């Protein structure tokens, strides 16, 4: 069974991020690493391929400046190959545009039956790309998977809910978004790291994907960022001396917020 994992490469969250005042978006000119959220998908895909006794795991990513460091981490973990779409014309692409590009890239992977994504990325976290990919590819989508099993062309998912989990099944091919923290991503081994540099990594331009240039980039989005502002500083809380009326004051405060 061949599995595609969407692997977003993001600025290292440990480094202080910065917004570009001109484009009003996150600066992505430094080193990009594999989004931790996607490590769970990579791990799950590797486990599924191992359980199925074969099949390839392919990483698909869209990132600026032909950045591949994050993909190399995923290849070092054990993925077989990677596809990167990078093109100056993609700068400013919004979530829908990203989904179009990723869907086109996924379409180029031979025999891809299962597409895994994270439920949301760590830097953009709109949480909309997975369902958009599914819609574009005409595949069913299951979200918030905490475990995935595949048997006889059907995928069985435990779907995380507030109360517990739903058991959902659907036929392959499909798109499943994986909840963070549900598996322990393996650390790449040194053998894996050394092997990663000779694994196939296809680099595609926008033209290669066949996606209409007018539907991506700064002009292609159906949205415009009109301004960015610092989050307002939080006001100091109110301090009451407890003179015996503390409970009443707390209840009154919560009633005022319509919480009780």
């Amino acid at each position, binding site marked *: 069974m061949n599995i595609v994992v969407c692997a977003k490469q993001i600025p290292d969250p440990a480094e202080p991020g910065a917004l570009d005042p001109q484009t009003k978006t996150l600066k992505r000119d430094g080193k990009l690493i594999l989004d931790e959220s996607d490590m769970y998908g990579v791990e799950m895909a590797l486990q599924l391929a191992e359980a199925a006794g074969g099949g390839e795991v392919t990483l698909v990513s869209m990132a600026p400046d032909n950045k591949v*460091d994050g993909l190399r981490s995923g290849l*070092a973990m054990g993925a077989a190959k990677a596809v990167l779409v990078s093109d100056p014309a993609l700068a400013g692409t919004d979530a829908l545009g990203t989904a179009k590009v990723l869907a086109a890239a996924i379409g180029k992977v031979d025999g891809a039956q299962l597409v895994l994504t994270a439920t949301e990325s760590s830097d953009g976290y709109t949480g909309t790309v997975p369902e958009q990919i599914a819609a574009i590819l005409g595949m069913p989508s299951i979200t918030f998977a905490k475990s995935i099993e595949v048997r006889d062309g059907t995928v069985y998912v435990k779907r995380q809910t507030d109360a517990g989990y739903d058991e959902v099944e659907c036929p392959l091919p499909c798109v499943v978004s994986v909840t963070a923290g549900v598996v322990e991503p393996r*650390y*790449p081994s*040194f*053998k894996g*790291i*050394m092997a990663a*540099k000779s694994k196939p990594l296809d680099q595609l331009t926008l033209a290669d994907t066949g996606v209409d240039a007018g539907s991506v980039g700064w002009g292609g989005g159906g949205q415009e960022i009109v301004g960015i502002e610092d989050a307002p500083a939080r006001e100091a809380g109110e301090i009451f001396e407890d003179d015996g009326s503390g409970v009443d004051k707390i209840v009154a405060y919560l009633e005022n917020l319509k919480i009780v």
Partner: protein
Amino acid sequence: MSASQPNQFGTGDPHDFLDLDGLLNDEELLGRDTVRRFVTDRIVPDVGTWFEQGTFPVEMATDLGAMGLLGMHLEGYGCSGASAVAYGLACTELEAGDSGARSFVSVQGSLAMFPIWAFGSEEQKQQWLPAMAAGEVIGCFGLTEPDSGSDPGSMRTTARRDGDDWVINGAKMWITNGSVANIAIVWARDAADETGRTIHGFIVPTDTPGFAAHDIPRKMSLRASVTSELVLTDVRLPDAARLPGVSTMRGPLSCLNEARFGILFGAMGAARACYEAALDYAGSRTQFGTPIAAFQLTQRKLVEMMVRVNRGMLLALHLGRLKDAGQLSSAQVSFGKLDNVREALWVAREARGVLGANGITLEYPVIRHMNNLESVFTYEGTNEIHTLVLGQAITGINAFNAPGT
């Protein structure tokens, strides 16, 4: 106030001032960052407790093995076959966690696996190396004895031929992983050679009758690492347990040379962790109305630490490149062990002071590293011994024996 004046002399990255990352390729960076992540996730949170309790979680061996950290610079037999620089950088990251973790990896890879890999028979290699690389079999290295430390050639442990077998008697002291090991590489003099120059290495399964290991209690250093005494009483082994490839002190000394290479990188990891703890603390601790980092006296300490950490890493990388080119001499390894460990100890002590009272608790990593480095200073050739090695290398005169002896 001077603090508000523009920074007229430029800025620098406090965590990589000389841009040493620029000397590493993508693969080296990925390996380094992977080990750093493992150490941050799996060692740093608990190592204070291990240190306090005087234990090392031996279960971790299989995780270290899965990453390919055991025997990582050896080729074949399930080993990673990584470069010397990659191995060194892994040691730096492990020791930034704790010298005990790095010692575990050094002993397994450089002291226990290396002699089998370099001097073992094909059967011995096949039997032991893959399981050791996976962390399923743990090894230790028995060279030092109660009365034989810096002068290992004076060892008393003997191996006596008895029919087709060997019978080993003696005691080994200060043996890392001794009581948790499945096999011990034991060096012993051949009883038949009266000159004492014939030294054999044996692979001794630790469940062989006559073999006993006792932990050395009450250590104040390298506490997150097991150190034991080995006692061998009429330990009988077939000749197939002897490493056939070497029969002189060159055997154990070449293992030490491998391990010292890891140490000269590793010590800088401990130093870096101390410097970073001090830098962080100095920026947030306020006395006399300012962060203590604003005092010239503190800045001097921080700068001295930063300079030594960068210089030591630069030295380590240089020696690593020489090793990968097959050009590193053992005297050059002595240079690295001598200088990087003493500088690391200097940095740790200075950092200890910057943290004030907090510097003496296990809530911060500094005193743990400082105490650990006392062991690192002593093992694998003391500072004095490496000084004598270098002295002989540049003068041509051997000064190991006191005049008149």
